[in-house]
């Protein structure tokens, strides 16, 4: 089984983001960047499937500037076999390359690489759109599982994958035929930290660079007008004791 794992370079999830002075984007200058956390879960799962002999090759891919090589090298150190960078100077967000463009780009790569499984994060923590996996599955005509918290490879039968998905109020189990697209949630696993020898080894693993092909012609896109701060909350008060709290909730806020 060949697995393709798309990843995205995003602002590290522990960084408090700032809006730029033009109110046109989030400032990414001199900010710590990382692999999108959900994509790290997807990578971890792919590498575990390879380690257990169920997958033959793990290929990771991203779209971005040459700086995105850092995240691809991290993915290679975690255990991916080779990497593909689709170079683009445009940002991959609402102000640049949007989910549909990303899905179309990965669609082309999927047709070249013929993976049996595409594993990716359920959403990126920057635009939070949560669209690319489903769009990619649609373009390929493949089944999809979103918000996946467990993946089992089945040995026999017509369907090769059993997945559990986190849905409102519970967990849903599905069986899928391959090839398939699976988007994953944090509960799936705990991604490993790359060890130093693996980081050294990753430097010699293949990293192919391709030029981003503008697929935007004819597609319908959205225009980013502005990025603004959420309205601030009114300042609160510190209360001396439980009685005052109960009184305020009953008579001032009237919520209990």
């Amino acid at each position, binding site marked *: 089984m060949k697995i393709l794992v798309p990843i995205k370079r995003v*602002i590290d*999830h522990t960084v408090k*983001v700032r*809006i730029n002075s033009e109110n046109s984007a989030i400032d990414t200058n001199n900010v710590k960047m990382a692999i999108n956390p959900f994509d790290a879960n997807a990578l971890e799962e792919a590498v575990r499937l390879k380690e257990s002999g169920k997958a033959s090759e793990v290929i990771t891919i991203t779209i971005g500037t040459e700086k995105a090589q850092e995240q691809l090298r991290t993915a290679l150190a975690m255990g991916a076999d080779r990497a593909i960078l689709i170079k683009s100077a445009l940002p991959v967000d*609402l102000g640049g390359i949007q*989910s*549909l463009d990303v*899905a179309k780009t990965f669609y082309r790569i999927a047709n070249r690489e013929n993976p049996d499984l595409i594993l990716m994060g359920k959403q990126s923590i*920057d*635009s*939070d*759109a*949560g*669209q690319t996996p*489903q*769009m990619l*599955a*649609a*373009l390929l005509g*493949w*089944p999809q599982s*979103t*918000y996946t*918290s467990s993946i089992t490879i089945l040995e026999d039968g017509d369907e090769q994958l*059993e997945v559990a998905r*986190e*849905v*409102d*109020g519970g*967990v*849903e*189990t*599905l069986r*899928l*035929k391959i090839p398939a697209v699976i988007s994953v949630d944090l509960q799936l696993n705990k991604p490993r930290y790359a060890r130093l020898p693996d980081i050294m080894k990753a430097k010699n693993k293949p990293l192919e660079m391709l030029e981003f092909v503008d697929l935007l012609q*004819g*597609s*319908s*896109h959205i*225009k*980013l*007008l*502005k*990025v*603004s*701060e*959420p309205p601030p*909350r009114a300042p*609160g008060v*510190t*209360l001396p004791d*439980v*009685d005052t*709290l*109960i009184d*305020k*909730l009953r008579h001032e*806020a009237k*919520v*209990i």
Partner: protein
Amino acid sequence: MPVLILAQHNNKAIHPATLSTITAATRLGNNEIHVLIAGYKCENVARSACLITGVDKVLHAEAPHYEHFLAEEITPLVIGLTEDENYTHIIAPATSFGKNILPRIAALLDIQQISNVSEIIDENTFVQPVYTGNALATVQSESKVKALTIRTTLFDKAPLSVENPASLEHVNHTPAVNISRFIQREIIETERPNLTTAKIVVAGGRALGSKENFKMLETLADKLGGAIGATRAAVDAGYIPNDAQIGQTGKIIAPDLYIGIGLSGAVQHTSGLRDSKVIVAINTDEKAPICEMADYTLNADLFEVLPELIEKL
């Protein structure tokens, strides 16, 4: 020209998120509102949807392969409907139902979807939270059809009315695609209200220290008739199952009252509760981020305050 709403339901009843989505659709101007009830043995749901204020027409599609709302099966049905009618918008709630299906439809219609719409400025212009609500993006779409998922906690539920019921139209089902199959759904049964729709939410963090101590929160929640929430740290520590998680990787809530106990208020958590009307923080550290955003703060030890609160409420 009409708008189409993908209704979330369980073949027995309409999901409240659908009612909020209908309210959002009424802000798009004077468009007719069509609601699609696709499922299995769900005709009663379709009939009851005719009574929702604002709805002009209910489309009812029935087939065994729609029973579990698989995206692979519902997508061709919706694509077919868009070929028969000039819909200006296709709208779904931003729940696990809508978020799963709508991007699949949007891709085949070659349109970029707008996710988690929190405000409708006009029929082409929308606000959506990005970076877990730490910023708001205003976006505009000039496409013929717009695909939107709606952040339903920010829109009131459309009321029911027996006056002017909508018309009901049965539409033919599409053939089964059969590339994915539903096996089972485990619903976690609870006496408490649903976390995403509860008016009161009591949430705890790692400072509770144990599963047993977390039970105290449950007592408080039951006294208030509220739901239980948690931080990711509390879930990871095994104090409570994952579906109680609030924040970036969990649920987005907007109750009338949120009480945060034994949690610092990391941005990954607070981004999921920013729209709560009243926020209460109970924390010994007055500089904790949750205290800075709270309306009422008690700087006190939770193990002293909790029993007292439970007793006095």
